[in-house]
């Protein structure tokens, strides 16, 4: 099934997201849609899948203009999108969520429960054997949320499948398996559009590449081999007016005694010893010990199924399961030691009690570091003293260089814009200790590079920076590198 957008524009109150965009995708191929954060990729996906109405232009399927009032219309026309941040009902099981989203197939016929169950099991075995259909969504990880949404999408039998940042929450092994399965679908005639920031992925796994820039199709490559990472990087760099700032000083506004002045700052070292936790339905950790030193960037790399998500919960104070082990926070003036069993290591403790103004950047930006129903003002001022403050909000928006207003909703943000705002909010407190989990997730190549340098810059100013990453974080910036595998940690030297 061929699909195209012809002269499509989408404007919001304060910004134009798509500006006369024309782009086409042929059936039986995998198409990559690339672009910097805020380039309009997710908006394009939302318009194609009927989730968003456009202001002008048209959608063409097989050369015929169509109009979707809602997502159901798009599904009936054979277009299904798996969103970057799949919204599932937390309190019910994976299977119940799948049943909720699959009332109709792309042919417009109503699917019976029996059909859905049969199809779901078939796709589970092929795409995600580890996915437990009976598990409540609140207990599953981001990758499993993605697979649940993907299976629900596949059950509808789409002619066009749009995957918005499919590999953002997957490790390399899962990505390889995902693209192998996607290739099979494409060979069967399906038109697959993959939105991604990862240029290697586009180059390796897709047939065509379209680069969006400020809502317009900047470059289209009929053959992905013609597209090289260098070419895209060049295109992005030349277009990028303001990427993430790379200097800690720019975030701290030069307030003496905070980030700007290393000599009058506290120094801190955070040590975790013998972390052991066996949460239900999530990977366990066994005797994990590591140290995040001041003035250095400490990287813990691993996969989510190796326990990286569990470790994130422990170090950020969000782990609900009984945890053994010891956490010690040393500053130049004090030393605090607490057992993890006591459950005293909480975000409240890390942020307000230790005097470290800890910055916490979790891997779940959508529902932990933010929430779609929050206003941008609430999102940015949540930890600021007093009420939602317009001046403070505007200052952080300018600092993050995101085109949004304080009274808009967080749901209006693209993944990359949200990440920039979260970084701006967390780093504005002049932290002495930074916990960054998957900090490069959802960022384009240049922003990812800038963010890594920014974290290194904070480390060089005397902060203890702990990075948990399942993707390629530049190790040359790190003072210590640990590897988490099977719930156990090794390493410690750069």
């Amino acid at each position, binding site marked *: 099934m061929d699909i195209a957008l012809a002269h499509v524009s989408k404007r919001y109150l304060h910004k134009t997201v798509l500006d006369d965009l024309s782009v086409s995708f042929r059936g039986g191929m995998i198409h990559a849609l690339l672009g910097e954060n805020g380039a309009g990729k997710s908006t394009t996906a939302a318009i194609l899948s009927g*989730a968003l109405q456009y202001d002008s232009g048209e959608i063409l399927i097989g050369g015929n203009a169509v109009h979707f009032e*809602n*997502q159901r219309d798009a599904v009936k026309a054979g277009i299904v999108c798996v969103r970057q941040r799949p*919204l599932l009902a937390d309190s019910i099981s994976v299977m119940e969520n799948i049943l909720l989203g699959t009332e109709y197939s792309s042919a417009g016929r109503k699917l019976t429960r029996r059909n859905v169950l049969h199809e779901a099991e078939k796709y589970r075995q092929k795409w995600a054997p580890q996915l437990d259909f009976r598990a409540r969504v609140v207990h599953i990880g981001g990758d499993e949320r993605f697979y649940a949404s993907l299976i629900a999408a596949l059950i509808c039998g789409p002619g066009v499948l749009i995957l918005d940042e499919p590999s953002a929450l997957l490790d390399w092994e899962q990505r390889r398996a995902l693209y192998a399965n996607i290739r099979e679908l494409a060979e069967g005639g399906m038109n697959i559009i993959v939105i991604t920031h990862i240029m290697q992925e586009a180059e390796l796994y897709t047939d065509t590449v379209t680069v969006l820039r400020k809502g317009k199709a900047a470059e289209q490559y009929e053959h992905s081999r013609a597209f090289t990472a260098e070419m895209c990087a060049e295109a992005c760099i030349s277009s990028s007016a303001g990427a993430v700032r790379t200097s800690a000083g720019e975030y701290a506004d030069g307030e003496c005694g905070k980030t700007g002045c290393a000599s009058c700052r506290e120094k801190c070292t955070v040590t975790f010893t013998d972390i052991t936790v066996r949460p239900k339905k999530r990977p366990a950790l066994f005797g994990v010990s590591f140290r995040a030193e001041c003035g250095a960037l400490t990287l813990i790399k691993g996969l989510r199924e190796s326990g990286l998500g569990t470790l994130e919960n422990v170090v*950020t104070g*969000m782990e609900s399961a009984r945890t053994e082990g010891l956490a010690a926070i040393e500053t130049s003036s004090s030393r605090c030691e607490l057992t993890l069993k006591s459950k005293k290591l*909480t*975000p*409240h*403790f*890390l*942020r*307000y009690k230790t005097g470290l103004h800890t910055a*916490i950047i*979790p891997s779940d930006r959508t*529902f*932990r*570091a*933010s*929430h*779609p*129903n*929050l206003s941008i003002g*609430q999102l940015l*001022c*949540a*930890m600021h*003293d*007093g*009420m*939602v403050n317009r001046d403070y909000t505007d200052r952080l928006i300018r600092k993050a260089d995101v085109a949004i207003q304080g009274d808009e*909703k967080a*749901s209006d943000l693209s993944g990359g814009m949200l990440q920039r705002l979260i970084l701006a909010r967390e780093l504005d407190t002049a932290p002495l200790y930074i916990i960054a989990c998957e900090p490069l997730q959802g960022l384009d190549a240049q922003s990812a590079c800038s963010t890594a340098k920014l974290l290194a810059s904070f480390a060089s100013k005397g902060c203890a920076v702990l990075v948990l990453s399942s993707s390629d974080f530049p190790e040359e910036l790190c003072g210590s590198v640990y590897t988490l595998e099977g719930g156990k940690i090794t390493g410690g030297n750069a």
Partner: protein
Amino acid sequence: MKHTIRATGAVSVTAGLLFTVILLVASSRTFAAAGDFLAGSFTSLYYFGAILNTASLFMAAGLGDAVLLTTGEFNLGGEGQIYAGGFITAVVLSATSTFPPVVSLICALAAAMAVPACMTLVSGLLRQFKNANILLTTFLVSAAVIPFIDSLIAGPFRGSYGNLLATSFIREAVRFPHILAPSPLSAAACTLPLLCTAGWYFIYRTKQGKQLQITGISNEFAEYCGYPRTKILYGTLAASGALHGITGFIAVTGTYYTCHSGFYTGMGWDALSCALIAGSNPAALIPSSLILSWIFTSADRVALNYNSGFDISSLIQGIMLSCIAIQYAGGEKHDRHHS
């Protein structure tokens, strides 16, 4: 969201009014009952005062509901808490009858706030340690307390007059006077719009209020932000219980001058309707309480004057709550689609 809330309130009230007018016209086959329903209460000093008095009680109890609604929880035990507040007021005023009136009133107010607050703290403990649903536990605690108080009123605390199932009347010195005789509007009722204004200021103009609002939007985000969630849980539950207790205190000291069996009936649900229509905004509680009080008082008046054979108030309330529920569900669905 604010637009949704305003629309929800307007649609619910309009639906309730339309339903009542149609019902009255259909049942009496004349427009007299419907006309009396809409305007009759304003022609009588008694009914006008009754509207204001009932509205003030809705404001206090509605504020209790609104505080908890802001954090995303429901207090369905309002009636039991109002009853407990009223009962303990009558008991303390009786027990301190030898004390100076001001001391007696302060003791009664403190007790009226403390007992219902303790009732809600049971729900807090069950939530903290057993992850129990607050909506359910507040209702169950209330359901257990109501017959217990009924038995106390019928037994050891029963006053010694006639067949009235009530405690002794409180002494004259601790009664808030009726300021619009012959209506039951008491002087204490005048303070409640101020309480709503203070509630609005707290929720929309303080750091703690911001924390409550954000907790109501996302518990996980609130925890991540390092908000003191245990304090927020117990604080809002206690405030909710205490405000319902204040409602009972004002009902006894300002309206009935005794705690009679079942004086709370319907008050908790009516107040919850006010809070839902106001979108849990304490300032909007003032008009929503006045409107609902007018509707319910007028419905009772019409039922009395035109000898209606059905409980119009309950029917109106059912219609309005249904509208709120439908629109709330619609709003949630809309939000999900746009997220």
